[in-house]
């Protein structure tokens, strides 16, 4: 069954949305969207590096994404204006990655696949990376759930309860880096942020607790993956954009049904 590329693509997509629902909710609550963009764009540099050194793909994307997460965490702890730093990092790394990719002949032809995702390219090894990474991050989120939610609600209240908000922020940053790195095959570097934010934003309208929002966002993400990959398969549209387009449509419906959320 795993020989069928569509089955593999669906499994990969579902593995990804297993974490994007909960993690994307944190991204929305904590306004980390720009941070997600910076990390995701930087993964193109990681792709170029792994091609250049014939290293495993995910080693490159993971390495660069984690490095960017740590750099941003370090800079923001020192009180730099994070928005500006993120802008420089996000676009600087993307530009650098594209330049680096142009020096790698084997990469030039499938660069699009890494920018927008390509279901045809999902292999069994990809599945292992995606499900492994997703399980790791999901485990991390479940384990620290109460602390992460408290720190997201209010840092002063969290501190008084003995929670270190800086540590929880770092954990979310690292989790985000892992998810961004494993998502490169499915939605690509340019759209993973959308995959995090849009289902969570769509879930906001009808959620009354953080858990409901994370759960609904996961369900909306799964529907988007199934419908988007279906469209990609039957209509020949690019995978990543199709998945994101479906979630955007769901978001629009949620706005109509639940007001401005």
């Amino acid at each position, binding site marked *: 069954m795993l020989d069928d590329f569509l089955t593999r693509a669906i499994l990969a997509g579902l593995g990804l949305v297993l974490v994007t629902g909960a993690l994307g909710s944190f991204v*929305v*609550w*904590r*306004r980390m969207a720009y941070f997600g963009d910076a990390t995701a764009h930087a993964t193109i540099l990681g792709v170029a590096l792994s091609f250049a050194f014939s290293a495993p793909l995910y080693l490159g994307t993971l390495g660069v994404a984690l490095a960017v997460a740590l750099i941003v965490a370090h800079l923001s702890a020192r*009180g730099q204006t994070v928005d500006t730093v993120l802008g420089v990092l996000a676009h600087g790394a993307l530009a650098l990655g594209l330049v680096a990719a142009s020096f790698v002949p084997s990469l030039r032809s499938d660069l699009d696949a890494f920018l927008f995702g390509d279901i045809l390219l999902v292999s069994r090894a990809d599945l292992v990376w995606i499900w492994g990474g997703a399980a790791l991050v999901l485990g991390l989120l479940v384990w620290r759930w*109460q*602390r992460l*939610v*408290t720190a*997201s*609600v*209010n840092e*002063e*209240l*969290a*501190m*008084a*309860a003995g*929670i270190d908000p800086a540590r929880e922020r770092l954990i979310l940053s690292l989790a985000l880096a892992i998810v961004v790195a494993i998502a490169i095959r499915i939605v690509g570097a340019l759209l993973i942020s959308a995959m995090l934010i849009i289902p969570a934003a769509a879930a*906001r309208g009808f*959620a*009354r*607790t*953080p858990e*409901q*929002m994370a759960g609904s966002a996961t369900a909306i993400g799964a529907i988007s993956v199934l419908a988007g990959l279906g469209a990609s398969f039957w209509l020949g549209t690019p995978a990543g954009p199709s998945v994101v387009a479906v979630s955007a449509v769901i978001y629009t419906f949620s706005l109509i049904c639940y007001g401005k959320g």
Partner: protein
Amino acid sequence: MSALIQATDLSVSHAGSQMPVLRGVDFRIDPAEIVTVVGPNGSGKSTLVRALLGHVDLTSGRVRRMAGLRIGYVPQRVHIEKALPMTVRRFLSLPRRVGDAEAGAALARTGVPGLESRQITALSGGQFQRVLLARALLNDPQLLVLDEPTQGLDQPGIVAFYELIEDVRAETGAAVLMVSHDLLVVMRASDRVVCLNGHVCCEGTPQVVSAAPEYRALFGAGSPGALALYQHHHDHDHDHVADEGGHAHRHGPDCRHQH
């Protein structure tokens, strides 16, 4: 009796300003004591509270908190992102989960029974303040730290609040550290008052403080209530202020001077 929190020679500066917000502050609070910090806006009351809780870096001095101290904290300002859906009930279970009965009782106690299913961002200011207080009362705190807890409360709410604080202290032996501008009530409800203006201007029992020249310099002889209350009840004490365990610490008649 060992202090719950003891601070010695505390100084705090905020990033980007050379003037320290707090200079050489000594502070302690003992079990079952109600201590109120008063002082003008910007005098460093919230900064002191946050320093005592260990939320801000100190420029000098040290703070010792009793090991394992359980604190119920109501900050002066709590902003909750609208993008984060949160019922009152769920909020009370952060970070430690509490049972429905316990949550309901805490809400009833602070005068907002039955609010469990409401969204926290959809509460009125006073309702939210009461929910914050309810949350602080959970988990059997040994110390309540309340930064302007009566802001936004209606008049009966303020009276009920101070009664509640007294009750909690009597029942559980919890100490209370409060920041307040309700001078009139503070003078009645506190065991000890600390008058702060970057440094401790004066401190002691409400009687001592309201008679201190530093306090009068800050709040003016016309400050409503406090002084009148004091004079009304304690006229005969005037000459004995210093003998009454009044604070030896004197800064000259005008506490407003920065030095």
